[in-house]
């Protein structure tokens, strides 16, 4: 349980999640990409190795506690995104929500849910990295600001930026065809097999993830701009476009052809069930 507490600090789950948005706000782009895409995934790996693999009995004993903590922090963080005015804090809270979904998938002791958790770790690595690139690099470079109030209708004269914002938000919210969708669906199906109550509450994920993805999109592409400097805003450069495509194209490719991932990661999953 103490190890679970240590991992819960890293995931992060609800009473211990305060550090993540603040770290994301203060960090620069590359640091927050590494933090969201890699370091948070290490907590997934640690809970797979330390909790499930090393001490399956303890994990089975505390699974209901961990599921409850995961559910509470999932609902809290997905609703907390809607009251944010800072774009990087919103991205941080959305990554908290995804990580809690992964935690629920791991601890519900089902083949499908476990596979979905691992796939969601991969999917979230790409989609959150693209989100932080957009908010931290692309928009911050142009506006020198992170607040949503100042990016109202920023993409009116930058179609490339608009399209990449849309694709990133779709990947983050789980459009059919991305790995996010596939993994969320398999986590839902897997938890429904073991614990129906958790799955019923968890099915709000489809709604809330769309909420916190489309809210910033509509904020930054619609409405009346606060300054007419946005008429001369620079569209995406080639470097930024290639970076975003490099992050997002694998998400769509593996989402449609999920069988490619099967021999790579799904081999040892059965041995992790307790």
């Amino acid at each position, binding site marked *: 349980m103490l190890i679970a507490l240590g991992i819960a600090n890293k995931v992060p789950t609800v009473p211990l999640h305060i550090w993540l948005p603040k770290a994301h706000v203060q960090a620069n782009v590359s640091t927050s990409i590494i933090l969201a895409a890699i370091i948070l995934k290490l907590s997934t790996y640690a809970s797979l190795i330390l909790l499930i693999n090393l001490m399956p009995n303890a994990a089975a004993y505390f699974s209901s506690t961990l599921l409850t903590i995961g559910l509470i922090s999932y609902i809290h963080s997905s609703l907390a995104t809607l009251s944010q005015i800072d774009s990087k804090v919103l991205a941080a809270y959305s990554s908290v929500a995804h990580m809690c979904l992964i935690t629920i998938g791991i601890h519900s002791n089902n*083949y*499908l849910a476990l*596979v*979905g958790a691992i*796939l969601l770790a991969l999917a979230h690595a790409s989609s959150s990295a693209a989100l932080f690139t957009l908010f931290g690099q692309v928009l911050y470079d142009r506006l020198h600001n992170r607040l949503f109030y100042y990016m109202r209708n920023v993409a009116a004269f930058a179609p490339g930026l608009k399209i990449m914002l*849309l694709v990133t938000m*779709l990947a983050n919210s789980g*459009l*059919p*065809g991305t790995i996010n969708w*596939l993994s969320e*669906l*398999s986590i839902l*199906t897997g938890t429904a097999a073991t614990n129906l109550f958790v799955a019923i509450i968890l099915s709000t994920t489809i709604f809330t993830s*769309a909420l916190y993805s*489309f809210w910033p999109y*509509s904020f930054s*592409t*619609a409405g009346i701009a606060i300054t007419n400097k946005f008429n001369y805003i620079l569209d995406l450069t080639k470097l930024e476009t290639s970076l975003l495509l490099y992050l997002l194209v694998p998400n769509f490719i593996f989402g*449609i*052809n*999920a*069988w490619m991932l*099967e021999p790579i990661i*799904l081999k040892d999953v059965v041995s992790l069930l307790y």
Partner: protein
Amino acid sequence: MLLSLSIFGPIASALIYFNFGRYLGNYSNYLMLGLYFISLTSCLLLISTTITDNLVILFSFTKLSTVLSLNLEIASTNLSQVVLTVIILVSYCVNCYAIYYMSSDAFNTKFIGLLSAFTFSMCLLAISSNFVSVFVFWELIGLFSFLLIGF
């Protein structure tokens, strides 16, 4: 064959508008109307011939395990053909109106392309015979209606 022809019109016109709309300009409107007319006639032919339910697996997300297999299945039943005809007919009229109404807009080809893509996802929702395909095309409808509202 007729079924694929009837859903070919909206998706083909959406692709034309998105890819070649800026080169073709207003000529793409005539192309779109022709494609919709083909769809409408094939729909009416489908209704007039009573056929048994034929199931088509449109696309198969390869299964993650034996437990979860995701297939996009569509089937043409008599009810779905009636709904399909209504969708094509109404959106034909809507597109005719949109050509007139949006003609002063600079991005009118993009708007009508979105409208055609919306029609396509509605058609596939009408003929889907599987919860997976209902879910997928419902999401697509939500996406395109969001984009149309925010245009």
